[in-house]
């Protein structure tokens, strides 16, 4: 008995992403950012995207390619301080940015992936980030109701995948990838190495295959994945 094979070519996988789609991008800085999938998204050019990523990468990398190409209308992130273009576009009104506290962003995505509607937290109470949000009381403590955050697509980067889409992430390249892989209607994973089913020990699977829809092999790893020299 074999499990389904999710292998796809990068062009047809990304062709599913339509104008106006919401797209989650894994990564925290460079590690875990699916640069090749983003590059293909730029090549195909769907517009008016809502991008959900921890950060906006740096100028000339990843999210910045989409911004430069005018494909992003809204960005949901925790911090964009390393990308001067993103900040300038936000200040000029060319880009709508929703800032979410980093752990709340992670949890809103995780909750969506867990099939739940939201969660209650006291994080941000007494600060401007609580303004306009629904408040509820749980066991006598008032908190903010944070809604689940899902997306039409998630693009994630794994070090190793098997053909069923079981994923293994390297070191700190895990970050938002396993959360986003669970939270989208369609998850497209790129992997540096694709192995036969059975070659990743079941105990070492970080993202189980049922969460992955399309699997793209990276034949070579462009320089953008490498060590950044500042």
């Amino acid at each position, binding site marked *: 008995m074999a499990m389904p094979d999710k292998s796809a070519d990068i062009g047809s996988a990304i062709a599913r992403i339509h104008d106006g789609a919401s797209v989650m991008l894994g990564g*925290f*800085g*460079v*590690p*875990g950012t699916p640069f090749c999938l983003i590059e293909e998204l730029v090549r195909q050019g769907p517009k008016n995207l809502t991008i959900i990523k*921890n*950060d906006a990468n740096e100028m000339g990398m990843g999210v910045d390619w989409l911004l430069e190409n005018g494909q992003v209308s809204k960005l949901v*992130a*925790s*911090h*964009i*301080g*390393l990308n001067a273009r993103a*900040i300038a576009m*936000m200040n000029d009104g060319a880009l709508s*940015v929703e*800032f979410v*506290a*980093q*752990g*709340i*962003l*992670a*949890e809103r*995505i*995780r909750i969506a992936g867990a099939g739940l509607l939201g969660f209650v*937290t*006291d*994080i*941000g109470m*007494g*600060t*401007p*980030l609580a303004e306009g949000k629904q408040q509820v009381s749980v066991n006598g403590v008032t908190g903010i109701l944070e809604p689940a955050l899902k997306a039409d697509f998630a693009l994630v980067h794994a*070090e190793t995948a098997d053909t069923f889409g079981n994923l293994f992430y*390297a*070191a*700190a*390249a*895990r*970050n*938002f*990838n*396993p*959360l986003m892989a669970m939270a989208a209607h369609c998850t497209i994973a790129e992997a540096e190495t694709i192995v036969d089913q059975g070659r990743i020990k079941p105990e070492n699977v970080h993202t189980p295959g049922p969460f992955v829809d399309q699997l793209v092999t990276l034949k070579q790893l462009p320089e953008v*994945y*490498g*060590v*950044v*020299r500042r």
Partner: protein
Amino acid sequence: MLSDARERMLRRAARDILPGMTVNLGIGLPTQVLHHVDRTMAICLHSENGIAGVGPQLSPEEADRNLIDAGGAYVSPIAGTSYFDSAVSFAIVRSGRLDLTLLGAFEVAGNGDLANWIIPGRFSPGVGGAIELAQKARRVGVLTTHTDKRGNPKILERCTLPLTAAACVNRIYSDMAVCDVTPEGLRLTEIAEGVDLQDVIDATGTTLIVPDGPLPTF
């Protein structure tokens, strides 16, 4: 800030990192406290991007492209290091597993309020993990110059900028003094060597409780 005053402040903050602690050091000045920590001491450094047990920084030549800390520096694993996703990383923070966090400040108030992420209209790169660190670490230390570049106090009666978290700060380390937030108010506990007490009082934008007798220096 003079570099020796700065080094003194970093060295003083480092003394409050104790064996057995799990610690998160904010990006920028707080990270530099590490240069003054005895690295043979048994502590667990946490990084928001999913590391418990952050090891020494590496040069680009030695670096693992997949292993950065939350500030983007290439770091190394040590015996006992673990990696996890961002939800688990902030579960560690919110559930009170951090014994100490050291953070920077735009403004800090005598009641422990902290403002360190946004200057409306001038600086708004996003909040990152600051709110959760400030609100949920068991102990919060702030490293800051006592005054801004124009000489205005950064330690105030009340913050004027939007808060990161209310009543979260326990201790302030500045280039001039160490101050503790207490129920009675902000208490001066130590003074930098060679700094005059009246200068500290004048540079502070809120009432300081000054204990009787000589103050310890650092």
